[in-house]
């Protein structure tokens, strides 16, 4: 089975960053479905936020065989991970935390406007490396 994982960073109003973790070309139809799943899970994140006290919200939604895990930064930027089966939660949490460190560095760049798309290639490379390390 092809693993069609996806990682999305969502700001206040729009996605800031997207990364497809599936190796090679998943069917583009399922690609759109992945984005749909993640965006519909955003409502679940808001609900979960009211219940949880910590930043890591674990699995907030599931759709068929896909699960969505979420992590919210203190500034309400949401990290969403779509994955196929329940991975080790600690691994996912560690991945989110490391991405958050990279994210903080990006926001400290004076030329980055908050809540806009992240276009830095360095960031992209490093998130890919983290994804390979934690989620492959």
């Amino acid at each position: 089975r092809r693993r069609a994982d996806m990682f999305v960073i969502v700001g206040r109003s729009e996605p800031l960053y997207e990364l497809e973790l599936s190796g090679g070309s998943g069917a583009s139809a399922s690609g759109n479905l992945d984005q749909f799943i993640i965006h519909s899970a955003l409502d679940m994140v808001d609900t979960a936020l009211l219940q949880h006290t910590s930043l890591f919200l674990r699995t907030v939604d599931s759709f068929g065989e896909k699960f969505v895990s979420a992590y919210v930064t203190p500034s309400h930027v949401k990290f969403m991970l779509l994955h196929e089966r329940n991975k080790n939660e600690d691994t996912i949490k560690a991945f989110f935390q490391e991405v958050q460190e990279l994210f903080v560095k990006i926001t400290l760049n004076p030329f980055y406007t908050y809540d806009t798309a992240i276009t830095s290639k360095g960031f992209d490379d490093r998130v890919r490396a983290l994804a390979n390390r934690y989620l492959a």
Partner: protein
Amino acid sequence: MASRSAQRAGDVAWARTPKVNGELFALTYGAMVKRLVEDYTEIDEVNEQLEKMGYNIGIRLVDEFLAKAGLPPCQGFQETAEVIAKVAFRMFLGVAADVTSWNSEATAFSLLLADNPLAEFVELPRQYKTLCYSNVLCGVVRGALEMVSEEMRSLGLG
């Protein structure tokens, strides 16, 4: 060697100066550069403004430096370069610079900062490729040297 004693003088001066949080410093400078970039349409104008700001800082900073560092007058331009790089930069920026690329007449040199605290989190977007982000430093050196009556020109390289 002159360089090593300059280094020691720099370390001593740095130890004596009051410190400020490095992140606050970098973020403040970054906010200022971003403001300038937004206010001026041409990047060259921004570079010029940064240099002018630096000049205003330099003409005042040199007196503080000479008072605090307590060094004897420099014997030549090469010694001046070492003092700027190892003592002054270390004292005010926290990191010493390296003096390199002397020209054949020994009238021009380059200051290399291996670790630039001003640009701590900065990633220049492609459209600002010609921006000399740390050009304020060039102005500081020019202002300082002018006050001790050495006319100079600098070619900032960000």
